């Protein structure tokens, strides 16, 4: 069988290598090369999606298993179920758009090359992580991914980018390294041998509840940092504020999903008892995140920080859905992971376009733009409305599935989280009001309307959100089986106790 997943991991990585290897003379074309690579990747992702058998979405498909480091039980094992499939599609979709969005960012071809190569490298890691079927492989990619991102943040961006990069790295490292303890401990709980880290071999283990809980916590911490949960979130606003919008879009829209993805496919699937044990606390934290993130978003004047806080809030909803352990809430969470990628990715990019025009993320500097750039305003509004989960746009379906699905388990939690719905309306509309309505200041009069390139970036996302808003079944079909499996895992263990 054609090792399509390996190819999808290798392709962007090789693309990055190619960019770096290009002679300086041909660096004028790096953007086209990078775009082409990601386009091929996207085509592969689409092929993947088409070939994917939704009837057996719960089992891993396109599986490949090669021995990698048999001495420590690590394999190069790739394979995707429905959840992984969606995440890979998301990663493949957003990367070309991010590249396109930053088309004019660098004047210096060398810097441009580095930027694009790092983006491609990140994509390789992202795809690898979502496809990893081996805990060690997952961990390695999870940590190694920090490096291209660290450079993306630290080299390209705002005034405090160095601080932001270091902060990002340290937060992630603390989580990652503690997870490493869990990974190692898991090895000793598992069967050992040359494929000790295959997730297949690690599910349904019987271990002492203390061990399971500790390992669970080690994993969870790393993921809670990545999918920023209060109070581990503070790196995100800093990064968002300082990194390029394209970077941040990828970071928040795709990379941070690794956190929730990991919670879903590792934390819950491998440690169902511990997950159940921890669920009440985690749900409380998730709900706090929802409200806290939303309130802080309201309090921001920096749009990039604002958007990042909205993500904190949204991640709270995803986590809530995951740890409610109902079929619907988990489906909703997984779907939200995808939809939030579209929505927040678009939001970061559109805010980036705005900043590109006027050079400041400060919301108070803007005003009355709707009259000047109605299309821009409309696009912004639609994207903003997707962030507040307006029905008809895809995030709504997922959010409502989480809230409705989780209700039976966490009534108070859902009720409080539902307050986030109101707060979401506040932060989105407040921002829109400040930026686009009211009298138009002099400085805003010459603002450029959304360009063709920018439309090419944003409208596909908006279109996808609309399509998935009405026909979420396209995605849910791939999520039903995996979610059912997860629920089954959690509940079987419950019965066994």
């Amino acid at each position, binding site marked *: 069988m054609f090792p399509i997943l390996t190819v999808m991991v290798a392709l962007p990585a090789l693309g990055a290598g190619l960019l770096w290897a290009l002679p300086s003379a041909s660096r004028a074309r790096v953007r086209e090369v990078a775009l082409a690579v990601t386009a091929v990747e996207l085509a592969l992702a689409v092929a993947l999606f088409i070939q994917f058998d939704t009837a057996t979405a719960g089992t891993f498909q396109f599986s490949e298993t090669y021995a990698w480091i048999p001495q420590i039980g690590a394999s190069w094992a790739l394979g995707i179920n429905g959840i992984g499939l969606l995440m890979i599609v998301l990663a493949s979709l957003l990367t070309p758009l991010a590249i396109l969005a930053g088309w004019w960012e660098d004047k210096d071809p060398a810097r441009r090359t580095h930027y694009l190569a790092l983006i491609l490298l990140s994509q390789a890691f992202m795809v690898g992580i979502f496809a990893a079927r081996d805990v060690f492989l997952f*961990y390695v990619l999870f940590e190694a991914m920090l490096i291209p991102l660290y450079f993306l943040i630290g080299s390209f961006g705002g005034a405090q980018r160095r601080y932001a990069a270091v902060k990002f790295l340290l937060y992630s490292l603390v989580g990652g390294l503690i997870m490493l303890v869990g990974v*190692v401990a898991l090895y000793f709980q598992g069967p050992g041998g040359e494929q000790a880290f295959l997730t297949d071999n690690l599910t349904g283990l019987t271990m002492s509840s203390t061990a399971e809980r500790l390992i669970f916590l080690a994993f969870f911490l790393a993921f809670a940092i990545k999918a920023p949960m209060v109070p581990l979130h503070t790196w995100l606003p800093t990064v968002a504020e300082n990194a390029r919008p394209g970077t941040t879009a990828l970071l928040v829209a795709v990379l941070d999903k690794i956190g929730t993805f990991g919670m879903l496919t590792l934390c819950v699937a491998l440690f169902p008892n511990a997950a159940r044990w921890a669920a009440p606390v985690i749900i409380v934290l998730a709900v706090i995140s929802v409200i806290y993130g939303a309130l802080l978003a309201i309090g921001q004047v920096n749009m990039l920080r604002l958007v990042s806080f909205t993500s904190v809030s949204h991640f709270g909803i995803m986590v809530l859905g995951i740890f409610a352990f109902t079929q619907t809430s988990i489906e909703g969470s997984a779907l939200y992971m995808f939809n939030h990628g579209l929505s927040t990715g678009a939001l970061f990019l559109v805010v980036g376009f705005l900043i590109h025009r006027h050079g400041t993320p400060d919301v108070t500097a803007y005003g009355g733009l709707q009259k000047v750039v109605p299309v821009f305003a409309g696009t912004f509004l639609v994207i903003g409305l997707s962030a507040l989960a307006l029905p008809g746009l895809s995030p709504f379906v997922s959010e409502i599935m989480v809230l409705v699905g989780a209700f039976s388990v966490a009534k108070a939690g859902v009720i409080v989280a539902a307050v986030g719905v109101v707060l979401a309306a506040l932060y989105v509309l407040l921002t829109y009001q400040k930026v686009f309505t009211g009298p138009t200041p002099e400085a805003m009069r010459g603002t450029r309307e959304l360009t063709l390139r920018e439309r090419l970036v944003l409208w596909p996302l908006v279109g996808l959100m609309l399509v998935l808003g009405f026909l979420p079944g396209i995605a849910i079909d791939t999520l039903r089986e995996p979610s059912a499996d997860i629920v089954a895992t959690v509940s079987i263990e419950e019965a066994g106790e």
Partner: protein
Amino acid sequence: MSFVTPVIAWAPLAPIIIVLGAAAIGILVEAFIRTPATRRAAQLALALASLVGAALVAILQWATLDGAGTVVLEHMMVVDRQALAWQSVLLLFGVLGTLLFAARTRAGEEAFTPLGAVAPGSTEETLARRKGMQLTEVFPLALFAVGGMMLFTSVTDLIFLFVALEVFSLPLYILVALARRRRLLSHEGALKYFLLGAFSSALFLFGAALLYGATGSTSFDEVGAGIASATGLDTLILAGAVLVVVGLLFKLGAVPFHSWTPDAYQGAPTPVTAFMGAATKAAATAALIRLVYGALYGLDWELSWLFWTVAIASMLLGTVVALVQTELKRMLAYSSIAHAGFILVAFAGFPDSTLSALPFYLLTYGLATMGAFAVITQVRERGEDGTVLGEATRLGQWAGLGRRSPWLAASMALFLLSFAGIPLTAGFVGKFVAFSAAMSEGAWPLVLVAVIASAAAAFFYVRLIVLMFFTDVPDGQEDAVAVDYSPLARVVVVAAAVAVVLLGIVPGPVLSAFENAGVLLLGAAG
């Protein structure tokens, strides 16, 4: 009384004999070849040839060894796979170290003073420099050190261990004192290193004496047996064991026996620092393994306290103090202290897997160390008149190196990331196997401290990366730093970088090899 000729298995000693023999020949070369250039070439060739040859022999022996190994001399020395693994690692460091020893700037400046005996700054020094004098003795001295370390990994007798310790320490004391620039610091480093080294030797020796008193022997097997059978001698044995272990922990640079490390690292000529940083740690670890697993296994409970304490103290102190360093070599020295802690983590609970994990860990650590210091040798200050001076080791001087010399900076970043244990570098796999060993005995709190220290440590590694890549060269400082490529140093950098990447991505074969080495011929474990 009749004299029985001792039975010595000479063949397994071949690598050691080659190295020490070459060292002795090197001394003769000193005596007979008068032209400095020729002498240097001869010494370099001799050193490299002997080290490479010895490495080949060692690896060959390792590959072809039947069973666990050979007893070279009853009670005194064995050569088993473990020893051969360590010897191979040490020889690799020896080769890389020798290359660095020989590296020169484009202006032909070596790392070593032309004449150790003249006072720094004196007219004689200038004269010696002008005459093109060279201290080619450094090569045989390095060979002695390598030979001593190889012995160190194989001997199974406390007194022999003591002798081997001195055999590799004395050349290092001397080498540390021989820096070409900042000779006062070099002397200072050497003096401190020597005095403290002698002090710790004395501690070791007294411990050996106590163990001898308690068990009637200094041979590991007999000591081990004595510990098992002795009654009423608990504290005596314990005192002896602690003192002996402390002597080795000193060489390892573990807290609280670390204080020599930063000063010696900083003062020493950078190639020596590289060699010392990589090889001494490896040798000390090897000896510690053999001692603990071979002789003191019966004290595992008591020694656990020691290792836990020292490991935690090392990791924390090394990390914390490295955070505030502004001198690069010192920073790496403190980092090495933290790494000593990580090494000790693997001893927690004394699992068998430590035997295979630590050689690999030290290999990865040593490669990164070699590479990092090799990079340091190439980044130099530039004087007002454009001449290239000594190494630029203040952190600030590295600002913007990524622009100036991207590949060198990238290599340095790679080594730093390896130190930090980021996946896809060798350091990660090293940490992984080391921590795995500790976890296998359930020492997760220790591992937790280790990873937290690692995370904090990442901060200072990353700080240098930030400087190199994200910081612009300060205004007016554009010409203050020169990157002076030395082909030999470059070879070391490239070799180390390639190895770090390969061991990070496909460590399998090497891991297998070390797994195979994870058996001691004599010892409670195994």
